[in-house]
């Protein structure tokens, strides 16, 4: 069963993703609302995917990307963001990061989480 950690400062998004993943049999190991939560939850649970918002107060998504331990097998991240700009375009160069603009297509996220897990 593929597993995820969801971090977004919009509680409704976290909640609705949890409900959808429940139907799709994706295990939600933990949820948080800032970049520091994301680092701690990934260290604790080692999920297959981290679903990460960028624009959050205090500790944002860039904090998470900088502070996640960079092992041989880096944490796979799906960045879901309403932002656009050069900083976000740069993220697309990382192999372990997929960037999806908001409003996202939930089925696309499900497909990524499920397909990569079956490799």
């Amino acid at each position: 069963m593929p597993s995820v950690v969801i971090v977004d400062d919009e509680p409704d998004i976290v909640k609705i993703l949890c409900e959808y993943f429940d139907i799709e049999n994706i295990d939600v190991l933990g949820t948080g609302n800032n970049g520091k939560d994301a680092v701690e939850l990934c260290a604790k649970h080692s999920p297959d995917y981290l679903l990460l918002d960028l624009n959050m107060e205090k500790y944002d998504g860039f904090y998470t990307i900088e502070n996640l331990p960079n092992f041989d097998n880096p944490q796979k991240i799906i960045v879901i963001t309403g932002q656009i700009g050069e900083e976000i375009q740069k993220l697309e160069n990382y192999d372990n990061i997929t960037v999806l603009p908001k409003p996202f297509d939930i089925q696309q996220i499900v497909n990524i989480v499920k397909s990569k897990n079956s490799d």
Partner: protein
Amino acid sequence: MNTSQKILIGGSIIIAIGLVSTVIFATLIYEQIKQNTIENIQRTNAAYLSSIASNSLTIENFKPIMFEEKNQIFSNYFEGIKNEETVRIKVWSKNGTIIFSDGNVSVGDNFSTNPRFQTAIQGQVNTEIKEPIDPENISEMGFGQLMEIYVPIYLDYAEPVGVIELYFSMDKINESTDNVATLVYTVAFILIGLVTSATIVSSILVARSSKQDIQQEKFASIGAVTSRLAHDLRNPLSVINTGLDLIAKRTQEKQTIETCTMIQDSVKRLNHQVEDVLSFVKPRSLVIKETNLNTLITRAIAELSVPNRISIEKPSQNPTIFCDEQQCVTVLNNIIFNAIQKLDSDGTITISYDDDQKNHIIKIQDSGDAIPEKDLKKIFEPLYTTKLQGTGLGLNSCKTIIESHHGRIFASNHPTTFTILLPKMMK
């Protein structure tokens, strides 16, 4: 009063000040030159007269006796000095008696009270410029300005022994100073001309750029507000969209699923407009990568909901294209979206591909009505829309994107066609 009016008035004031000060400056220069010339003439004439007097005259020649003999001596003496400018020569004795006059007028008469003579006999060269309107006698007629110069003659004595009065026409001198004046004024007016045109040109440039600055400032603040607004809109849109997916997944009711799809189409439309505004106020830099036409078209259509009554024909070729994939998808998406909105009944949208040596040529045709001629030129302008619901930014974004690829986009009629030229060599 707007900025360009202010600049226009400011510019006119500068030009007027420049004009007045140049005229004053040129006049001052002219007067200075004239003054210098007159002083020079006075000095050289005085020096000349004194030096030749010292050489060939004696103190005896300046005694007011034997006027006949003196007439002879001075006539010979002045033969070498006189020229066509010379109007009159007089020789005064020390006590103010006229010893010699070339017109033989007043010889033997005493004018010792003449102030000019008195100044001269005290050792001071002095001159007087006479205007031709008030000639002293008939022989002065026919000349312009006249100069009268009184030169004290010392010979080798400590005090002047007499005075030579030379009266001559200023015509030649004035002619040459007038030539100088013409030159000064010509240069001055050329300068004024240059300064004026430079001021006008720079005013126009400043007016234009300040207009642009104001517009850019406006757009920058609108941009800041809209990009926040857009970001804030995207979270609720995400919740609505995913919520609808969730409802559709949980329910078995066909009607509910259809309603969900309908709402999701609206969300797409809403998002489309947000994208339009965002890409207008916050243009993104290009990320060039390899892609192909099929991917661009497929992605562009995937983001739209195409009604069943409309068919889209894709090109058979699938060339490799180097471009910013996301932005080119936006371009195609915008044009196809417009075509779908325009075709209210059945219709076809045909996408065709061609190329030449330098460009990929992508054409999007629709079977709908022609674009009115008056709109054809304006449709790429920002905020220009013929639709009730449009932002008027979609096609402007397309133009911005294609032009940042160094390509071209234009619209034509019969059939209604949008043509995109994308350079093959993108760096």
